[in-house]
């Protein structure tokens, strides 16, 4: 009787899992096998796919446009991550001082985060427009922000930072308010000033928050597409804003080299898994500050 019931219950378990298991197999795991298969074939969607072995890999690593997109992506991440983290931490510090109105500012800062990055990119494309754009009107300049090879990447990074600072702020606020008051009181009694307390007490205690914000930020910045696509179509001036995601899109859906685009996607996948594994290692040995 008991085993019959257990078997029935197991049956129900598999039944409840069936739809999501189908989804995961069909739309997450099967595609990985397909992308590996595609990476070994030459295919333009029209003529039949042709097996070419590792030729796509060789070609991709000799492809100057792809190598440039790796550099552009790294530069983009290096511009976005430190700035958005510093600004987010700074505004979180201001917002946790207990001043009236802090809740209002926090709500406002999150607004760009819930908006479609594509539409935000379109709005900023107008703001950056050389004629009729808002930025040149404010600054009294006549700059071609998005078509100057020296300015395009910083401009694109600025939009990304602008849209994400509020989100980062939320996490630092949570981290800061989780710091026990006794620790801050102890620091004050020991004669620590606000600046010292920030660097020597709060910042070390924010380590887990910091790492979460950095890892998720790096992973999503490595995949940035929507706002960059809107701001600078086709890789921007001389390819200076052609990040990996826009390069993959161009290779797959404009040049129709699905094999080579699959290789690029796999390279990005390996990079992101590496970032994730480093983060896992870190979290395993993270320091906790237990007060009990």
């Amino acid at each position, binding site marked *: 009787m008991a085993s019959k019931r*257990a078997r029935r*219950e*197991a049956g129900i*378990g*598999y039944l*409840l*899992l069936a*739809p*999501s298991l*189908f*989804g*995961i197999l069909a*739309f997450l795991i*099967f*595609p*990985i096998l397909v*992308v590996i298969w595609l990476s070994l074939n030459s295919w333009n*969607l029209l003529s039949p796919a042709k097996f070419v072995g590792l030729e796509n890999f060789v070609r991709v690593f000799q492809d100057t446009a792809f190598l440039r997109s790796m550099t552009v992506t790294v530069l983009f991440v290096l511009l976005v991550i430190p700035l958005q983290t510093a600004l987010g931490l700074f*505004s979180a510090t201001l917002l*946790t*001082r*207990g*001043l009236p*109105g*802090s*809740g209002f*500012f*926090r709500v406002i800062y*999150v*607004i760009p985060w*819930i908006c*479609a*990055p*594509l539409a935000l990119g379109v*709005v*900023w*494309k*107008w703001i950056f427009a050389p004629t*009729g*754009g808002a930025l040149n009107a404010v600054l009294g300049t006549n700059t071609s922000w998005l078509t100057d090879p020296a300015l395009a990447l910083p401009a694109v990074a600025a939009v990304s930072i602008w849209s994400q600072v509020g*989100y980062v702020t*939320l996490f630092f*606020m*949570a981290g800061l*308010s*989780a710091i026990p*008051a006794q620790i801050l009181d102890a620091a004050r009694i020991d004669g620590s000033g606000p600046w010292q307390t920030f660097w020597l007490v709060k910042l070390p205690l924010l380590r887990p928050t910091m790492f*979460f914000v950095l890892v998720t930020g790096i*992973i999503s910045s490595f*995949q940035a*597409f*929507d706002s960059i696509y809107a701001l600078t179509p086709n890789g921007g001036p001389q390819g200076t804003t052609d990040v*990996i995601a826009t390069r*993959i*899109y161009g290779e797959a*859906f404009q040049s129709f080299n699905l094999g080579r685009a699959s290789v690029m996607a796999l390279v990005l*996948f390996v990079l992101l898994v590496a970032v*994730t594994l480093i*983060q896992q290692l870190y*979290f395993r040995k993270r320091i906790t500050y237990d007060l009990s």
Partner: protein
Amino acid sequence: MTSPKLTPAQPLPPSTPDLTRQRRIRPGRPRAAAAIGTYLFLVAGFLLTVSPFVLSLMTAIKTPGQFASEPALSLPSPVTGENFLQLFSDDRNFWAPIAVTAQVVVVIVVGQLGFSVLAGYAFARIEFRLRDALFWVYLATLMVPQVVTIIPLYTVLSQLGLRNTFWALVLPFVFGSPYAIFLLREYFRFIPEDLISAARLDGAGTLRILWSIVLPLSRPILATLTIITVVSHWNNFLWPLIITSGRTWQTVTVATAGLQSQYNGNWTLVMAATTVAFAPLLVLFAVFQKNIISSIAITGFK
């Protein structure tokens, strides 16, 4: 399959206390000068955040004539709805992408949440042999980024003749999301066993227990997941861009991008389109801001 805004392999936020009730870090009043300094920075941040929205709305309610002849920052005079009328005219018909996106969002929210609830419950409360192994597989798929699956999904769905159909827009997302399943499992595990066994003694089956006991107790997490799914899929761009072509199945984001490249320089019309793209989520945000902010903190959703 994962919501497009979820980054892969997202670690849980390390600490997620209730953000809506901020504890004052430092007791006592900050000195007036420091407070004024703080407010100066906060107001600067406010202006930087809000001005792009205000400026784009201002442009959307200007006549194209005024936009062409006056500086970008001039106030709209007269205020006009002609850009919006043009946007919704038979010619541009921006209603169509709104209707498509709304249907896509509804179908995905219902399917993804429904199937994720079933899976989350199975992982949390039902004993079966492969449970832990399968849960591990689900967790591992969190590491798969959208950019990697997009090319194979495009080729497979194209081969099946589903390119540029409604099904192609929803199929990859409708069967549940590993991240939602993970969050639901965590939540369901803390529902007291007594409640469930009492209902079972009264003769309730699994679905009955799920529907009348588990779901009513899980309203907060369901609200959170609904919000993040709506936001993710209203804003989704890359997948609809790739899998649709032409106007029939354009979503709002794809239509906005198309309008921008087609009418480059016609900024009053384009800003009307971005206003429409933002509006529903801004209204949602205004109504549910507290829930949305704590949802972000709970799920770390992006």
